[in-house]
Every structure is written in C-alpha cells, then in structure tokens.
C-alpha cells in the first residue's frame, strides 16, 4: 500500500473502535430523529444519518471526551445542512409564513382527520423554517440543554433562549390557524 493511500484512511485502534461503539452508536436514534425533522422525511433522513455516522467514525479521533450525543448531533446537523444546500436550498432560505411545504406523502385526507394531534403537530413543525425547527426538536424531543443546543447549532448560548421563544411563538401561530387554511395551503402545494 502506498503512503498516499494510507494517509487518507483513518485507522482506529480496537480500543477506539470499542469506544465509538459504546459512546456514539447508542445515539443513532437521536441522530436519525434530528435528520428526520431537519429534512422532513424518513428516507432522506436514513441516508443522511448513515453518512453522518460514517463521518463521525472518521472524525472520532478528534473527539476528546465530553458529550458524545452533542458531538454526534453537531455532525448530523452539519451534514443535514450540506444536504439541504445541495438538494433543497429553498428550505434554508424560506422565511416563516411565506409558504408551507408539506411532505409529498401527506395527502389532504390525512390532514383532514380532525383531532389527530400528532399529524397536526408534525405539519406545524414542518412548516417552520429549519432554524426554528431545529431548536425546538433539540429542546422538546431530545431534551437538550441550552448549552448543548448552542454547541450543536453553533448559535451563541446567549441567543438560544430568544431563538426558542421565537420558534415557539411561530409554532403557536401555525397551530392556531384554522385547520381549513392549513389544508388549503397544503392542497395548493400538492
């Protein structure tokens, strides 16, 4: 093997590999969940979560202990943003309330089911701009602290609270829109 090839390959010794399996692999669910909400779809999330795990494996020697979940989620978040830039850059520029982007798989019939709280919340979260959505997902679904949210999203810790405040306010606005309006906007997109 030439030195050039060796240089490109990151070799973990057995202890490191074991550490990776013990510290990072258990957070695969969190990684997938974050990708699923940032990309608004399970299939894309599966691809991106997989890529993120491989990147984490490659960068593992740069991980010097501490919060393995936050470290992994930071990689997932960056990988998701790269993916969005490449495949769906409109998601990164969309501001609140300009458009609602439903998942293609969600039919108006599904949305019409009254009182389906999960569906309603899912739709509302997915209608949020990604930068608001991510802080809410990290806080409410992953239970991250402000410090962890700051580390994962690279926003200053002093602004995490106001970012969450704005995200929650917008989520509430969406949820209080009449269901028919949500449905109509969704129908227009479909």
């Amino acid at each position: 093997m030439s030195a050039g090839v060796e240089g490109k390959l990151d070799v973990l010794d057995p202890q490191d590999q074991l550490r990776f399996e013990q510290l990072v692999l258990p957070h695969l669910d969190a990684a997938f969940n974050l990708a699923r909400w940032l990309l608004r779809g399970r299939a894309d999330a599966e691809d991106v979560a997989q890529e993120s795990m491989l990147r984490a494996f490659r960068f593992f020697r740069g991980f010097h202990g501490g919060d393995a979940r936050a470290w992994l989620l930071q990689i997932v978040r960056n990988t998701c943003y790269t993916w969005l830039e490449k495949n769906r850059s409109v998601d990164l520029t969309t501001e609140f309330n300009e458009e609602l982007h439903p998942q293609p798989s969600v039919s108006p019939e599904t949305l019409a089911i009254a009182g389906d709280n999960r569906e309603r919340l899912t739709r509302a979260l997915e209608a949020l701009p990604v930068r608001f959505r991510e802080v809410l997902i990290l806080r409410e679904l992953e239970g991250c602290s402000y410090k962890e949210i700051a580390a994962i999203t690279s926003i200053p810790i002093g602004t995490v609270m106001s970012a969450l405040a704005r995200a929650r306010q917008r989520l509430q606005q969406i949820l209080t829109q009449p269901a028919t309006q949500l449905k109509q906007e969704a129908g227009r997109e479909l």
Partner: protein
Amino acid sequence: MSCELTQSVLHGYIDGELDAARAADFERHLISCAECVTALEAQENLRSSLQHAALHERAPASLRQTVQAELGTRTRANVVSIRNPAPWRFLAIAATLLLAVSLGWRLLPGLHGNGRQTEWASAVVDAHLRSLQPGHLEDVQSTDQHTVKPWFDGKLDFAPPVHDFVAEGFPLQGGRLDVVRGRTVAVLVYARRKHLINVFVWPTPQPDSAPLSGSELGYHWLEWRRSGMEMYAVSDVSPEDLAQLHQFLTQ
C-alpha cells in the same frame, strides 16, 4: 402584548435554565403580570402536546444494520492498508495459510453438519452479536491476564484458561460471564487488529477434539475441546485468524 418577558425570560423559566435568583424574580413578576401567566400556561400546554404526541422517531432497523455493516467494512479496508509489508510478515502469512489449508482439509463443509455443534454454534454466534451491543462486551476490562483470571474466581465452578497473546497479535481485552443455552460460560475477549474475537469456554467430560469450523450470519466460528474444556471462538475475522488463535490457545 406589552410584557417583554413573555418572549424571553419566560422561556428560560419553563426550560429550567434560569439560575435561582432569576427564577425567583420571574415568579415574583408573575404575581403582577397576567399576560405572562397566560403565556406561561399556553407554553406549558404546547410543551405537553409536543411531548405526548410521540414525535420522536427511532432509527429504522435497516439503518442500524447498514451502519454496523459499514463500520465493519471500513475496518476491514483499513486493516488491509495497514499491513506491514516487511518480509517476515509474508512468512507469517504463508504459515497461516498453510495452517488454514491443513485445517480446511479437515473442516470440509460435510464434516461439520453435526447437529449438536450447529445448535451450540448458533447460540454462541447469537451471544457474540449480543456482546457487540454497547456495554455488553466485558465485565472485566483488562489486558492483563493476571487481572482477568482471578476475576472469574468464585463466579464459576471451573477455571477457564486465561492467556494474553499480545505479542502474537491477539491482545486480551477482558472477560465476562455469559449464558449460552442455559449454561453459564466464561468468555475471553481478544482483539485481532480492529476486530473482536469472543472465546466461549465451559467444561466438558468429552475427550480432546480437533477443531470444527463453520459460519453463520457472516460470522465465523471454530470449536474444539482441550483438557476438559469446550471452546468456541467467534468473530468476523477470517477463519485463518481464528485458526491461528486456536493454535495459540492449545499450545
């Protein structure tokens, strides 16, 4: 909409991120601010709906399998690249191949169709897979055989042979107790480059036997009996590596 705290401190308060003094200040503020009380209630309802809607989605099994398989492949690819091409290495590889061929001769597929072995092998491969899950690999983590061996004392009604083969390329990683088909067994964990080998050990009244091999779910196993001990080595390393470890363990 006049109180500015509804859009700032209130969120730190419901998230438990205010220090004690600021939280107390905010609680005093609540007494006189109806707007914040209403907003607090609304936010608590929102949080409770979010948390009760089961929105957290678990990774699909297919992703878990792909990731584990990919990590394994990466590891193997790396192993090839780090082989030291020093001449003595070729001798070692040649010797291993010779050994593998001689073992292989005795281990033709038809020879290991024995039902007893197959059932035990399945159970042992299952235990191997279980051990690879986080936190399951070792009860005693040590590369020192003098730490691992006494650890088994009093936990088993037999004394498994514990040796480190670090110089031979099979460093001892640790040991644990496991249960295979209802029997408590000792397990020695060895590393081979970046792979792990579990060696399951329990006593047997049967005479010594030549090794039998097989594979299941992509894992190789090698079984033999020696000095009253039944032993199964299981790993994703090559059968040649297992054969080499068998040689060291039966020296």
